[in-house]
């Protein structure tokens, strides 16, 4: 772990894929994911990888080809954003239902209409119940680290589920960072090639994707629930292995200032960096604030969220996507459900922010912390769902 490379978020994912002995990549370009496909195409066309690269005619076919390849026993990767993920929607459920351990880089971008190419979480949140393991990275380093781990998590025989590694469109996809990368040999040792007994082999013919009527369908879905529970254990184990290799400690979430914080912000992805920056300044002024950043969104880390929030008096959950007409938005609803299940009476309010790439300024975050501290002090929530940084 000695080399540092200047990589954008997209390039960091592409580089991790290059090192992961991926057999098949099937993908289609879309902004802001395109750099991943472009960077990987260069590896292929310059003979730096042995991967079979299928440049498909749509995202739907990209994921369809990935499913075919994954069922055949190949290690498989694809990447997309926004409309591309929406076009894949049908295949997302089939990939998890057929237990294909595909890894996908999702460069989060707003959904049309109106059309917008900038970052928010509408795309993945719109598909959050698709049965995939879902990871959100804060920066290019995390995108690199999680992509390597994602293959190992996905392909674990107790899991066999697809994984999406999410990064914020443009904010991470196009921003250049210094990324500590492993040597190829170190990755080989950690990951090796995919090994599976369950393949499409003419010598051992199996039928995949049969028709399941009401007498069997439910059991298949129940098994998927169980697989995500298994994934919870496997993620922890792989994080430990990765820590041994790199010294970098991952988990289900990362918290800051939670030892004594009375109010905290919980958010996904790059916004956590801004929130931590603001929290540090406020803490210097004696304000007891903290930040919680879940890395893993599915399986949802119930236990970890409950534990991280145990000393808090107020929590603000930031959602970069809108669940129109819902009592609260996706991430916040999950947090509230997790706390409710544990009989916790923590005051939680929801803030929708940054849709369509609307900038998140430290001052905006500071105001949210102030609101959260007020709720912590008074025990009263004025507005359960607020909108930050929008003309109303």
């Amino acid at each position, binding site marked *: 772990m000695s080399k540092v490379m200047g990589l954008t978020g997209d390039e960091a994912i592409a580089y991790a894929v290059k090192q992961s002995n991926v057999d098949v990549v099937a993908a289609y370009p879309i902004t802001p994911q395109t750099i991943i496909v472009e960077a990987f195409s260069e590896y292929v066309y310059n003979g730096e990888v042995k991967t079979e690269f299928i440049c498909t005619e749509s995202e739907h*076919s990209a994921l369809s080809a990935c499913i*075919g390849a994954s069922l055949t026993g190949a290690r498989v990767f694809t990447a997309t954003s926004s409309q591309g993920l929406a076009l894949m929607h049908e295949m997302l459920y089939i990939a998890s239902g057929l237990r294909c351990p595909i890894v996908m880089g999702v460069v989060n971008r707003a959904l049309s209409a109106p059309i917008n190419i900038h970052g928010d979480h509408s795309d993945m949140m719109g598909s959050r119940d698709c049965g995939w393991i879902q990871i959100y990275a804060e920066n290019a380093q995390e995108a690199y680290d999680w992509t390597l781990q994602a293959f190992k998590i996905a392909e674990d025989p107790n899991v066999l589920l697809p994984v999406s590694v999410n990064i914020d469109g443009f904010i991470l996809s196009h921003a250049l960072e210094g990324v500590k990368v492993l040597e190829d040999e170190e990755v080989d040792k950690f990951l090796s090639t995919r090994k599976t007994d369950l393949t499409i082999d003419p010598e051992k013919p199996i039928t995949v994707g*049969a028709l399941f*009527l009401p007498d069997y369908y439910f059991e298949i879905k129940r098994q998927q629930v169980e697989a995500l529970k298994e994934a919870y254990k496997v993620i922890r184990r792989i994080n430990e292995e990765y820590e041994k290799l790199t010294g970098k400690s991952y988990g289900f979430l990362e918290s800051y200032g939670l030892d004594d914080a009375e109010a905290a912000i919980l958010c996904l992805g790059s916004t956590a960096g801004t929130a931590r920056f603001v929290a540090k300044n406020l803490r210097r002024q004696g304000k007891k604030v903290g930040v919680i950043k879940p890395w893993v969104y599915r399986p949802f880390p119930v236990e970890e969220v409950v534990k991280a929030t145990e000393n808090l008096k107020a929590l603000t959950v930031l959602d970069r996507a809108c669940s129109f007409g819902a009592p609260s938005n996706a991430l916040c609803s999950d947090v509230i459900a997790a706390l409710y299940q544990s009989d916790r009476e923590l005051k939680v309010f929801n803030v929708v922010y940054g849709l369509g790439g609307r900038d998140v300024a430290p001052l905006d975050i500071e105001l949210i912390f102030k609101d959260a501290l007020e709720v912590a002090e008074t025990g009263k929530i004025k507005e359960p769902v607020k909108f930050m940084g929008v003309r109303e």
Partner: protein
Amino acid sequence: MVTLKELPTEELFTSGHRLCAGCGAGTIARMTLKAIKGPTVAVNATGCLEVSSTIYPFTSWRIPWVHVAFENAAAVASGIEAAYKALAKRKAWDKDVDIIAFAGDGGTFDIGIQALSGALERGHDFLYICYDNEAYMNTGIQRSGATPHGASTTTSPAGKVIPGKPEFKKDLIGICVAHGIEYAATASPAYWNDYITKVRKGLEVKGPAVIHVFSPCPLGMRFESEKSIELARLAVQTRYWPVYEVEKGKYKLNIKVPSPKPVVEFLKLQGRFRHLFTPELQHELGIIQKWVDENWRKITQLCGKA
């Protein structure tokens, strides 16, 4: 041409499936698997053949069989083909595997045409078989881009104002040939040795090949199930379904029809055209005959025979 003696007695597409009596798709699947010569994988688009042959926990397929969805059989086949290549590169695989994608006309002419076009353009080594029963028969006989003019379906009914489907059938082979693929052919299950020979040719080609085969459907076309093969033969003998192949761009008529029967012989067996056999709509029969003649002229011209 293959002979009966050459064909294996082993049934790789087994009995016990729930396709209708007289269904062309079952016959076509069975004949296809009698044509294969080595390790083969089947990909099946959603449709009659898929739902009727793999009702869990049963399967009629004694070769590996994969169903993913309706519109993407060609894309799934692309992925399987690429995976075998990749596994061979890292020495995790050492067999040559043939890949056959089966899809109906809905999964080919309409919702699946994009995935098919992409796979043909990319040049994956696989055989795509479209079994064409000329409508969405699995969901209850709705019109498709393959439904012929005049046919009554549940979404192009024989109405008081519009007497069945106004539009004509798409030229699937023309579309496929335009991709520059090495082998494309039409076939009819009534001519089994022609069909089996074509399946073998399609598999031998390096790169994509397409076979478009007529698939009689007693339920949707509305005829007696025992007349299935008779109808498949009449389709050819009336020149409704020209049987030809295109090898490296060169067209060849495989079944000559020097003295064709009038197309009404083919139409009158089927309930979907019954409404046309009335004094008010008789001119429609003429329109269909004209389409048949024109199509035949076009194909035979391409084949170099007037």
